Structure formats: structure tokens, C-alpha cells
């Protein structure tokens, strides 16, 4: 039950994009088309889940026993950078079309602060292994949900009558703000 709560809360209540305001760069950069938003969301989910697992193992088996918690940030950067490289090679080998579709945004996951945030928050809240995994998947799904919703809205915006000064990034930021407000409505759901 607790796992389910963490899963739902990571998706809706503590959504990385709309609650913590992490990972805004791909959220705005890749949300022009639903297709690419979905692929980006999946790639981020994948990296988030593996990062959560590997960083938990390193944190609990290496850093904490040696009292090296202050090395968390550096180690997690190392983990994320290597994992993204690995994922990139893997996708390139397995599915060239997906590799083409993700393009530059795949290596850019390295600098997606939502992933770093995930590893640090999981360490901060002292989640156990199962919880961390669920938290990672939930956060990824939450990111995917936010970016796909955003892409859907922006596809509609393309054909709507937006005031000229607000076209493009301006209206996108306003939409992001309103979405964040709307997601605050979930905050009473889980105590």
C-alpha cells in the first residue's frame, strides 16, 4: 500500500516538473509534438529508473558504510552520465529510428536536473530499495505525463489565436504555470 502511495504521489502530487520545477529544459524543449514528447518521456523514465537503482546501491553499499555521504552529488553525476551514455549506445544498436527521433535530447538527459533530483531526493528521504525503484518509475511516469500533456496543449496552441508578443516560448511558460497551479490541486490527495 505504501508503495502504491509513493507511486501515485510521484506521478501527481510531487510531480518533478510541476511540483519541484525540475527538468524544465526538456519539458519546454521537446514538448512541441506529442510523438517526440512520448519518446522523451520514455527515455527519461528508463534513465530515471536505472539511476534510482544504481544510485541506491552505490549510496547504501559504498557511500554510507564509509561515511562518504558528502560525495553523493559527485557520484550521482558519474552514475547518470555513464548510464545515459550506455542507454544511448543501447538505443542506437537496438532501434536506430528511435535514436534518430530522440536526437540531441538523448545525450541531454545527462543534464536533466530531474534525474539528479530524483537520486538526491531518494537518498534524502532514506527510501529502501523497493521504494526507490517505485519512486524512480513513478517520477518517470510523472515526467512523461507532464510533457505529453504540455505537448498536447502546445499542438492546440499552434492553431489558436495567440496574441503576437506571447507566441512561442511566452505562451508555453504561461501554460506551464497554469499546469503547475492545476497540479497543486492534487496536493490534498495524499497526506
Amino acid at each position, binding site marked *: 500500500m505504501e508503495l502504491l502511495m509513493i507511486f501515485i504521489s510521484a506521478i501527481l502530487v510531487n510531480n518533478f516538473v510541476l511540483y519541484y520545477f525540475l527538468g524544465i529544459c526538456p519539458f519546454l524543449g521537446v514538448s512541441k509534438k506529442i510523438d517526440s514528447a512520448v519518446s522523451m518521456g520514455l527515455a527519461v523514465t528508463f534513465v530515471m529508473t536505472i539511476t534510482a537503482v544504481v544510485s541506491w546501491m552505490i549510496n547504501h553499499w559504498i557511500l554510507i558504510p564509509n561515511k*562518504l555521504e558528502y*560525495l553523493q552529488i559527485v557520484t550521482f553525476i558519474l*552514475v547518470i552520465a*555513464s548510464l545515459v*551514455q*550506455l542507454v544511448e*549506445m543501447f538505443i542506437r544498436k537496438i532501434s536506430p529510428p528511435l535514436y534518430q527521433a530522440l536526437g540531441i535530447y538523448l545525450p541531454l538527459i545527462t543534464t536533466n536536473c530531474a534525474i539528479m533530483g530524483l537520486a538526491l531526493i531518494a537518498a534524502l528521504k532514506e527510501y529502501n530499495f523497493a521504494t526507490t525503484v517505485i519512486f524512480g518509475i513513478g517520477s518517470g511516469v510523472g515526467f512523461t505525463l507532464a510533457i505529453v500533456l504540455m505537448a498536447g496543449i502546445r499542438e492546440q496552441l499552434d492553431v489558436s489565436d495567440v496574441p503576437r508578443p506571447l507566441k512561442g516560448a511566452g505562451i508555453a511558460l504561461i501554460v506551464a504555470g497554469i499546469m503547475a497551479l492545476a497540479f497543486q490541486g492534487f496536493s490534498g490527495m495524499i497526506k
Partner: protein
Amino acid sequence: MSLLIPILTMGILGLLFSVGLAVAYQKLKVDVDPKIEKVSEALPQANCGACGFSGCAAFAEAVVAGKAEASGCPVGGEETAQAVADILGQAAGSVVKKMARIHCRGTKEAALARGEYEGIPSCTAANLIGGNKQCSYGCMGFGDCVNACLFDAIVISENGLPVVSEEKCTACGKCVDACPRGIISLQPLAENMMVFCRSLDIGKTARKVCKTACIACGICARACPDGIVMENNLAVIKDKSKIEHEQIPAIEKCPTNAIGRIHRKPDVDAPPQESQESA
């Protein structure tokens, strides 16, 4: 000792990850066709997109995949086409070298000004309020084409019109898109005649605002009906072969010089062209 543990930990972790990545790289290596790299090297690497692909690398991939012609790079011209074709082991295909030509002769003296324009010095901006010349088809001379050119091939000359350097122009077409009035077009380098006007005004209006406008008198079209036709008050060269061989006087009858021969000027720093003609 307290310093050694973190250093060792980080060092070992880093080493593990790098070894892991190195192994993964070998296992998951994707065989890229070596031709793609070679073709890529032969290209000019201007990444201008004139070929219709997103850059030189994308073009190289398309050429090797057979989706593009070896001669598809307009910037590299014949040399590049030959080099690419050699790598692929096929015939180069013919490249017609083109360059940008300006369809306006309305110099400051020839075309009447509409008033003093003091807004943003850009053709696009000036065009929004109708431009700085009475002719609404003529070159405004603020140099949007100059800014668009990646190869420094265009300069605005003293008479207020852009001049394209035959040597530097690669016919990438950036200026064609940049011109808000569509005055620039890509023409084969060997082309020796064209219409130097884009005005669709009726003759009376056109004559009033510019000395070198096409006034739609139709003299050229009557002199050579097979080669030149009048369309929307503007002479259009339909079949230059007809004019070229028999009816050269047709284009020389133009009272305003709006249609005529292209006088190829050598670049200042380039060797003189043998096709140069006296003006």
C-alpha cells in the same frame, strides 16, 4: 587516511564505470558505413542546408543511402560532386553552376524615393510600411540578403543595389529566401540574359517611378514571340535558346533596359573572366 578513502572510492567507481562503458562500446558498436565518413569529409562543411538536408552529415548519409544525388551539394559545385561520386564509384551527374541574380536595376538615381525612411534598417521591416521607393517591387537596399549570405558574396554597392560576387556565390539560396520582395533568384552562371525587373505595375505607373522598370510595352515579346512572353505586365523569358541564336536584338530593343544581357563583371580579386563583355 581519511582523505585516502574518498579518493580511492571515487577513483575505483570512475574506473569501473569507464571500463563498463568501454566494454559496452565494443559490444554495442554500430557499424557505420565508412563511405559516409569519407563523403562527409569531401563536403564543404558549411552546414548551410542548401541541399535540402539538415546539414553536411545528413547529406552524406543520404548520398550513401542513395536518397540524394552525388551532385546534390550546390555549394561544393563540380569538384565536390566529382569527389563524392569517386567515393561512391558512380558518375557524377552534371552540375549546373548557379549564382544569385538581382532582378532590379532601380538605383538611387533611376528609381524615385518615396521619402526618407528612418526605421529599422532592414528590408523586411521597411517592406511592412511599403518600402523606401515609390516602386513597390524594387530593391530597398538595406541588405537583408547581405546579412543572410554565409559566404560574404553580396555587398550593397554605392548605387544602393546589391552586387553578387560570382566567385564567392555558392547558390545556396539563403538570399533568395531573405529578400522580402523576391527580387533574387538563382540563375545558371552561364546565363547571359535576364529580366532585371519584378514590377507588375501597369506601364504608366512603372515608368513614373523608375527609369529602368519593365513598362510592359511588349516590344521584346513582339520581336521574339517564341522566346519572350508578357505576364502580368512583366516580360518573362520563356525559351532563351530562341533568343540566343537568332533574335538577340529583341532584348536590345528594350527602351528601359529592363531586359538585357548580363554583363559579367570580374571580381576585384579574381582573375578576369574570358566571357567578360564590354558594357
